[in-house]
């Protein structure tokens, strides 16, 4: 029997990659949905231009007898959606409408939702790694974090009303790798990186290919539950900035929101308060539950994913190659000066 999978948010990179990989299976019929035409190749997947906030989506679902819905149409930055209110509309209201539409569909039996690490918030009272059962120490109150929490609440509501449906929520870590366009990658690629003074955030990444692999795994198999998906290791922000070869400026913590606002005005980067907290205190996820349930092992470590991004971006002002010259002269000076050599 051919499975019919509806994928939302296929116009963006990760959605397109996922739809393409899923459609490579001959017995899976993939319908990609988004409000804008796809910018990336969708392969065998069909594209339907529809807005998930419009009840017409219900007709698409019933007409094609969709059995699995993969919801990936989340917008992480207000810039990408045309303002914070429009972003919230797409994330929260979009999810509500989509879930309302699928709840009635007779053929519907599986839901996969892409959530994010931002549901855990970030604060100095956080444990080193969050497991799925832990609640945030400080509830995210703004931006994408709050949206993600609300999306997960609606998803849990649907799971309660339709106990026959397999519901999987994947909390993905910050995506990192060549060609990834996100707040974090734009921030790291700034010519001079402002960093909150006296803090060094721990960062955990996920390579897009691993994200797609994890989503494919839970779409093909039934793995109900909420799971953290991330590479196992951590890098610290200062280390990431060094690898990028960017000079950095220390910003006192009290001035960080002001600096973020200035950068937003200048359209350089787009940070909400919860993202500033994450880049101040750092956060990590424990991925043991997902690997136990599915045997999934990410192919890229955080360091490898970062290294791939570094290699694909232009070298910074203080790149290791440029500093090598200075180091070399210090070295020659030392060998002359000290007989110890």
């Amino acid at each position, binding site marked *: 029997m051919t499975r019919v999978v509806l994928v939302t948010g296929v116009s963006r990179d990760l959605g397109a990659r996922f739809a393409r990989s899923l459609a490579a299976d001959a017995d899976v019929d993939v319908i990609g949905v988004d409000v804008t035409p796809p910018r990336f190749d969708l392969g065998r997947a069909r594209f339907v231009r529809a807005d998930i906030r419009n009840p017409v989506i219900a007709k698409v679902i019933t007409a094609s007898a969709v059995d699995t819905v993969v919801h990936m149409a989340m917008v992480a930055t207000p810039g990408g959606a045309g303002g914070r209110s429009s972003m919230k509309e797409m994330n929260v209201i979009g999810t509500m409408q989509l879930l309302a539409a699928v709840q009635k569909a007779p053929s519907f039996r599986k839901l996969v939702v892409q959530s994010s690490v931002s549901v855990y918030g970030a604060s100095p009272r956080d444990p080193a790694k969050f497991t799925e059962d832990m609640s945030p120490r400080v509830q995210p109150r703004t931006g994408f974090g709050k949206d993600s929490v609300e999306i997960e609440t609606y998803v849990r509501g649907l799971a309660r009303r339709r106990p026959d449906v397999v519901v999987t929520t994947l909390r993905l870590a910050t995506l990192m790798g060549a060609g990834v366009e996100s707040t974090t990658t734009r921030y790291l690629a700034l010519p001079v990186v402002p960093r909150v003074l006296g803090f*060094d955030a721990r960062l955990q990444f996920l390579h897009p290919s691993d994200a797609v692999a994890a989503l494919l795994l839970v779409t093909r198999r039934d793995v109900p539950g909420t799971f953290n998906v991330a590479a196992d290791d951590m890098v610290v922000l200062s280390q990431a900035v060094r690898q990028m070869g960017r000079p950095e400026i220390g910003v006192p913590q009290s001035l960080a929101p002001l600096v973020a606002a200035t950068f937003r005005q200048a359209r350089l980067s787009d940070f909400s308060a919860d993202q500033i907290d994450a880049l101040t205190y750092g956060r990590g996820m424990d991925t043991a539950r997902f690997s136990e349930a599915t045997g999934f092992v990410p192919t890229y470590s955080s360091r490898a994913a970062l290294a791939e991004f570094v290699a694909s971006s232009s070298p910074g002002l203080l790149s290791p190659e440029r500093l090598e010259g200075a180091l070399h002269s210090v070295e020659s000076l030392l060998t002359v000066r000290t007989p110890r050599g």
Partner: protein
Amino acid sequence: MADAEIIQLGSAGRAGRGSRSTPSAAARGLAPARRTERARPVPPTLAGDDADPTLDPASAPLPDASPDTDATAEPDPDVGLRATDGADPEEGTDADEVPLTLGGLVGDLTGLLGQALRGLTGVPVEDLRAAAANPWDALLRLMEALGIEQPDSWEETLAFARSRIAGDYAVDDFGFDPEFTERVFLPLLRPLVRSWFRVEVRGAENLPADGSALLVSNHAGTMPLDGMVLHAVVHDEIGRHVRMLGADLIFSTPFSHDLARRTGTTLACQEDAERLLASDQLVAVFPEGFKGLGKAYADRYKLQRFGRGGFVSAAVRAQVPIIPVSIVGSEEIYPLLATAPTLARAMGVPYFPVTPLFPWLGVLGLVPLPSKWIIQIGEAIATDELPAGAAEDPMVVFNVTDQVRETIQQTLYRLLTERRSVFF
């Protein structure tokens, strides 16, 4: 109301919780007269020693104790104070007066200063001239004099600098950077440990060479230097890193967050403690927290409440031994005179330290007094023999907490009697 039975706290029976043989600390504090009958083992070193008679609370005269203390439930803070002061041999018999304790400290410090000045014989003019001629060599010699270890070779140092510049190093889940800790942090800390505090470690054989264990220590000295010193001495003894558990204030304060995470500290919460203990780490915890760190100089070496016993349940759950650590000397590095609560509240910190030197001398006031430290590492208390589910039994947890606390407190008293002076 008339038929209600009124039981006075601490006036009869075993009040509070405690083990079968000894009443709890709270019970002892409430019933001052009972203190004299309390079974606190007298340190063997006192026997035959011409030690101060006030050292032994059992024979200590209590001039204030009125004959009816048996019936009253009034806690008498003076008694406790005097008992501790008495245990401090530097004060002599004048321990009754609190101001004199500081006087003794100043006297000792003057002696130390005199000795240091005598050691400074003449200005080394020749050396200064040589330094001007070859500053690089002079820097090396200065580092040597300060006791900062020199790197094995400059190639190695440059390789280290290269890996730092390229960001090519690994940190663990908690942000711990072992390379930075071993190459930068510990070498800078060692002169402080070896030459300034002249730390003497006793019972190093009780440190486990492998496997996880929970070190529990007293916490004192206004600034958490004791944690760093413990890290340095344990690393020097057995080559393992001690992973500290710290308060959330550490992680919300700039620079302290950075340094703490780099050197292996993480938040004192159940999840992190269990994660560390499950990964074969040596974990250290200071259950007194800010109550111990920010206590007045007059209360030195009096252990505060040991949190809520969370460290015990973590150790019991992970079935790792608890190793009591008693640190003597940390109390005198910054003698805390006042905490300026209003200023502290305005700054959002638990206390604002006022010491004889800080804030009067500004940055110079941050130089710790060179007290002589003794770190006694006690014998491990096994937790793997406790029955299953003991971590969920509050009574077991309280009892083990009390046992650890009593062990550290008694070791502190014993070390204090053995100490000749605060600074030698």
